[in-house]
């Protein structure tokens, strides 16, 4: 199975609860090839977001391992995983998660600055242009609409040219028209950048645009 850009081997995630250990992700193995787009769908509480967190190294599995471009995430410490994310991973969230204290441009520059990239400003301006926000670079998040904020988030995710982009319900907080436009933009950028896309969503339209759809229920891929 090993050979894809992202590989999960027998992932298990358990958490403590008053009723004893609760298994949220159960024996999940998968292999995602470079450039592939994968949608993870399923009912609420199925373990989709937890699987995404494990694949992105935001959390560690109880057992099993995750290989991102050959790096075993479970063997790295917190800072090691952070460095790997900085270099190779992009994120888009349902709640946008822009930093309110920074302008649109500064938000997009941030991941480049974290890696010490020299041309952060130009790259960020270029990406903002690609998402259609060239005239909004100096705006703070609170001055932007929801759709615009998510476009800034997309620019921030793609500006580092990540190997893998993780998107958690990227259209969940938007109305359907805006959501559709953001979905469109997401796939365009993904195609342009040859990025591997892992998408957790309830949005059926969005899921069907992916090359592969993984359905989750009760912690397992079914």
């Amino acid at each position, binding site marked *: 199975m090993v050979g894809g850009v992202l590989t999960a081997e027998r992932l298990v995630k358990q958490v403590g609860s008053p009723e004893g250990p609760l298994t949220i992700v159960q024996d999940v193995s998968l292999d995602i090839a470079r450039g592939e787009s994968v949608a993870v769908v399923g009912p609420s509480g199925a373990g989709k977001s937890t699987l995404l*967190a494990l694949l992105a190294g*935001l959390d560690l599995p109880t057992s099993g391992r995750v290989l991102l471009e050959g790096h075993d995430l479970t063997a790295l410490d917190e800072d090691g995983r*952070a460095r790997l994310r900085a270099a190779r991973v992009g994120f888009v969230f349902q709640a946008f*998660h822009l930093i*309110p204290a920074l302008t649109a441009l500064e938000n997009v520059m*941030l991941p480049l600055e974290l890696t010490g990239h020299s041309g952060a400003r130009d790259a960020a301006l270029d990406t903002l242009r690609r998402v259609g926000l060239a005239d909004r670079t100096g705006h*703070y998040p609170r001055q932007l609409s929801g759709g615009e904020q998510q476009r800034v988030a997309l620019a921030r995710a793609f500006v580092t040219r990540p190997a893998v982009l993780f998107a958690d319900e990227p259209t969940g907080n938007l109305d359907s028209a805006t959501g559709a436009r953001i979905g469109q933009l997401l796939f365009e950028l993904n195609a342009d950048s040859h990025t591997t896309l892992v998408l957790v969503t309830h949005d059926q339209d969005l899921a069907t645009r992916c090359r592969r759809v993984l359905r989750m229920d009760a912690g397992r891929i079914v």
Partner: protein
Amino acid sequence: MRSIRLALRMLGREWRSGELGVLLLALTIAVAALTGVGFLVSRIGAAVAMQATQVLAADLRVESARPIADTVFARAARMGLDQARGTGMLSVVFDGERSQLTDLYAVTSGYPLRGKVLVAAHLFARGTPASAVPPPGVVWADSRLLAALGGHVGSQLSIGAATLRVGRVLISRPDQGGTFTSLVPNLLMNAADLPRTQLIQPGSRVRYSALFSGDRRRVAAFETWLRAHLRPGEQVRDIADTSPQIGSAVNRAGRFLSLASLVAVLLCAAAVAMSARRYVARHLDLVALLKTLGATRRFTLWLTTLELLAVAAIASLLGASIGYVAQAWLVYALRGVLAQGTLPAASLTPVAIGSLTAVALLAGFALPPLWQLSRTPAIRVLRRDIGPPPLSVLLAFGPSAGVIAALIAWVVLDMRLFLEVTAGLAAFLALLFAAGMLLVRAAARLRGHVGVAWRYGIANLGRRRTDSVVQVVAFGVGIMALLLLGIIRNDLDGAWRGSLPADLPNYFFINIPPHSRAAFIAYLHSHGARTSRMLPMIRGRLTAINGRPVESMRFPGRRGEHFATREQNLSWASTLGRDNRIVAGRWWTPSERGVPLVSIATEFERWLGLRLGDELTFDVAGDSFTVRVASVRKVKWDSFQPNFFILFAPGLLEKETGTYLTSAYLTPDQARSLAQLARTFPSVSIFDIDDLLNDVRAVMDKAVLAVQSVFVFTLLAGLTVLLAAVQSSRDERRYESAMLRTLGASRATVLKGVLAEFAALGALAGLLAAAGASVAAWFLTTHVLDLRYTFSPVACAIGFGGGIVLVAASGWLATRSVVNQPPLGALRAGSG
């Protein structure tokens, strides 16, 4: 570098949003309180030194039995110092048939260079400062001399071959000798008249003195030169030689001010802790996001630390500026009390200390939460319920406890006092917190009996119980400090000005012959004076310590040398005065009468490096006494009671010829009888210390003003705690207010609830302050100041009412904007 850039960018943005305002305010007030007091104390220290110079009538003084070389005066003139000359001798002065041995002091113009000569028109009257020296042909004679001669202003006195007119009554001159060395009456005259008296003949015993003053550095340089060029018999005196009474009140005030400012700093620390908590809560998402985007833990820690360091830097600058202005105002308010002329400029050390304090407060109270913040897991971007793991108790409280301990240690600079203050403070705070907790709980029980607004307000107090208790305590301490000073100030004024306590005498009587003791006391009592204890006084010289002659020994500092070689006033006593406290060893028992024991004052112990059990040999009029140090006494010199550095056990010195001394309180009316007393007991010397007492009162009054000003910082700090608490509950309040308004409550009802909450908080703080201040005032008046305590219901009412008004108004102002927000937006933003 990346983190600095990002931190500055975030700081700018958060600053504009008002997020860091309370933190900045808390740090600024802490720095202002500390630096203000630091500036003031450093300047007071310099002022005390200046005040001490008044006793010398100069900054530096040379004394000799031979005329002082002109080269000395020439050198001083070249170095730009002011100078004056004095010539003193004992001579008999006549007024017609009557005569009196008198201490003549002839001075040149410019005298005194420091301090002031006080003169009056009548005997034993209150003196006013003289503007110049007596003109040629005129003398100023003191009350004792005129009383003995039966003279008055206008009398012609024969002094040697000259006849000079009494122009004024000399009440005091700065260098007449505060330690009762001069037992004969004084007369001040112009040096130009000296040749006419023809008193200076070969073989005359004359004391020549040269007085110098000027810029401190130049005086120091001149002193160095002088000491290298001293001729035999010439003695240099500087401020190190002055008596121990000087500055003791001011020194204590300085330390007290520092401790008072520390209370403000500790309250600010509570506000810093609260602000830091809110800072952490509001930055959890940011840290999680930064980590998701690839930031390391160190980077996030750096980022937040840098941001707060920048706040500390701004606070240091602002606080030091405010501190400087506050201190300048205080110096202005204290003008005339601290010293003559201008005070030396403040040093820059307090600025460094203020900045260090800001950083230390952050390190102690904000760094642990920041450390915790940096441990926020990245997964929080997906699961908002996940926060950082809790801090260990050691990490959560260790740094803050360490910083508080370090601050106290820095202020008190004394291990024993440090332990006492720390333990006292801990007990005090624990007590206040317990009282605060009880009050908050008691208030919560009231909620069933009040209207809806009050119920909502009081419920809020109970719900945010820890915060409420912290606020009640913080405000309580602020109000308490001010109340306490108000009460004590009244007590002091009352005690000193009103009821005239028997133990605060304003006249000293020296040289009372043993056989006239009873008659003397009876005379004073018959004129309505209240006398204090009467102690014997015998002159003696310390000759050996543990068998080693003092001449062959070296002592720590020049003060020690001086003490070892000068003639001492010795006394004996069977009971220990109330103004004396044994700090080592023990006081003798009646059965130890005649045992060769001695009790020494702490100053004597320290300056001579003595220990309990040391054997001291004294020469008293040719008889040698070897006595063992049985105890060390802490003497309250400012009690104005007769006191001695050296007290013998009874049954040793009685056979030596000595005299007695006592002190008494006399009203201005009673003081008129002193002229008659001086004639009845001609050998008795009378010292009027009314002016000195008035000076002390003035210093105390101004010191109280200074302390009250510092306590204003304490109150401000209490206010900052309130702001911090309000801010940390702001989001919650916004949500609640929106909920209540959605459920149909009017804006006025919600506001009333808020007002009720803060009024209740203020009432509790006022109650705590009134009770605490009363207890503290009782303790201070009865145990420290030895005054009678009277309960002050007015002060308590002011504390209680003031607490309600102040807290309700501030709380209402701080939360008004929250309540005014439209409910929809607040509900959308959610509760967190």
